[in-house]
């Protein structure tokens, strides 16, 4: 049985439907990411779980109990906010101790627990600092410690790393992952960053325009996209519309608008349909001749450091080709092969 469940939750703000018929289930100890572009309703969904926003319809079930009407302070959840939301008038200690005080803990127990969580987030010795005296990364750790201190049943995180610079973000992402794994705490993690979602989660729910469009493991989401949105949102992909001519096991034959026919794998999450989309990620494209290949001209060359990226004009279709070494030059003609096991066909 799942620990937390959303059942057909809908929330409107005026005429705008922010969350539409969202259903979701998280098992105990699982880390689930809500992934989607900004404005897709992921934060609203998280706030509904926290109890900060009341849904118009649908219900939130926690340990088999309907908690839709329960105010946030009675849910025993922990939450990390995008801007940390540390209380500026309290020290680090007081910030972390707050939830424990609200639960009526004894003074010594609070001191012991605060010490423990601050150690966990590597902030020992910072107890008497004020939030303004901390760096962004440290503030983020305090926010995490504060949310974890009362050992909440569910940890909710709303884009917790989005305010940090890229390097720090990556460092904290790894640390966060090891902390969450070691605590085995049920976590719902909202992000617009797919790399973050991939690295952290057991399960990803991709949201678009207020709906969950696909739920699955990171590999499933990447390899078996359910629809064009997921296919293009995840990974760096080029999508070409076409029509599915025939299906042969897991492979399909698709005809592109320019008449070229290519073989590609059909996504398991998307039932084959005549109207189809060919999704080409850079790893599906390589230099070569023969079957399943296209004639191309190099239109642009971008040097990226560890690799070179080429933009190709291939019989009316734009493709990206990655290479470790500079092997082509602008204007040059070349043939590329599309790997049928890496190119994906989804229904439109």
């Amino acid at each position, binding site marked *: 049985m799942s620990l937390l469940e959303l059942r057909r939750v809908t929330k409107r703000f005026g005429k705008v439907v922010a969350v539409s018929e969202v259903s979701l289930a998280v098992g105990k100890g699982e880390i689930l990411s809500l992934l989607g572009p900004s404005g897709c309703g992921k934060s609203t969904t998280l706030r509904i779980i926290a109890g900060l926003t009341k849904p118009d319809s649908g219900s939130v079930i926690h340990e088999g109990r309907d908690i839709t009407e329960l*105010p946030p302070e009675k849910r025993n959840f*922990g*939450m990390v906010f995008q801007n940390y*939301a540390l209380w500026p008038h309290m020290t680090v200690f007081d910030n972390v101790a707050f939830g424990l005080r609200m639960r009526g803990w004894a003074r010594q127990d609070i001191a012991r627990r605060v010490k423990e969580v601050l150690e966990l987030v590597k902030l020992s010795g910072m107890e008497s600092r004020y939030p303004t005296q901390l760096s962004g990364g440290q503030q983020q750790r305090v926010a995490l410690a504060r949310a974890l201190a*009362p050992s909440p049943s569910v940890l909710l995180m709303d884009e917790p790393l989005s305010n940090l610079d890229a390097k720090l973000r990556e460092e904290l992402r790894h640390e966060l992952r090891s902390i969450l794994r070691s605590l085995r705490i049920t976590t719902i993690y909202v992000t617009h960053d797919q790399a973050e979602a991939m690295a952290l989660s057991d399960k990803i729910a991709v949201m678009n325009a207020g709906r969950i469009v696909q739920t699955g493991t990171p590999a499933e989401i990447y390899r078996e996209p359910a629809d064009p949105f997921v296919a293009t949102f995840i990974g760096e992909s080029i999508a070409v519309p076409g029509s599915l001519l025939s299906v042969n096991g897991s492979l399909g034959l698709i005809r592109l608008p320019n008449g070229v026919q290519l073989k590609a794998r059909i996504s398991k999450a998307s039932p084959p349909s005549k109207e189809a989309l060919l999704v080409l990620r850079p790893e599906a494209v390589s230099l070569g001749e023969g079957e399943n290949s296209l004639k191309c001209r190099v239109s642009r060359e971008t040097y990226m450091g560890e690799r070179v990226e080429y933009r190709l004009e291939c019989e009316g279709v734009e493709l990206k080709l990655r290479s470790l070494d500079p092997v082509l030059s602008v204007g040059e003609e070349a043939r590329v092969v599309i790997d049928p096991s890496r190119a994906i066909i989804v229904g439109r």
Partner: protein
Amino acid sequence: MLGSLLVLPALLVIVLLYLYPFGLAVWISFSGEDGFTLEHYQRVYEVYWEDVIFTFWTSFLSAVIAAVLGILIAAYLRLGADDPIKSFINQLYRIPIFLPMVVVAQMMRGFLAPHGTLNMALFNLGLSQPIEFFDWKGLVIGFVWKQAPFMALIILSGFLMVKDEHIEAARVAGASDLRVLTEILLPMTRNTVAIAFALAYASNVATFTLPYMLIGGAKPTAITVDIAHRVTFFGDWATANALGVVSFLLVSVFAVFYLREMVRRGVYER
């Protein structure tokens, strides 16, 4: 240079119309026929001491009650769920701010009179004897009626500066409305609340209309009434000014706090 020149007329007005008479009040209160004297303060102590104490505690009590009510109203408007009741209260509570004190005083005369509306209502509810409100009770009711909404407005403007996230973080951490108020909202806005309190208290001490129209010369009364009587009936500026200096002293602690806070901020925001 140009700056000083532009400020000069305003400075002159303040010095001539405020600082000079202010200093005069202090000077006269200590001046007798043979120079320095404390006799005026002696008279204040003998005749008006009861009124000094009365002015202090009624002003203070009213400010405390107004602060508590103001905080509760502001907290409700900040934390309560958006519904018709809230928007109704949000419109309603501000009405008293729109009325000048002299109108409040006149209104309270009709409302609190021995045979006024309130006593009528109480009588029809079964109270046998009318309550006398034209004493400290009427004064406190009048002050609270006028000041509580004012304090609510100032405190609410402070509460609105507290970010939603700070409140929500407390909620999720297990804080009820009351704990959010005492642990988050009030500590984060304590200067605003203190300033509102200082202003309300100081303005209660300084108010002339309400005690003059409600209590008048009856004992005990506010020192503003005593000052007016001393001047208009006796032409006795010395005692009036000694009383005036006492009223300065009554607000001094709060005034110094307020002035320090304001000078620190540099300038008011609009």
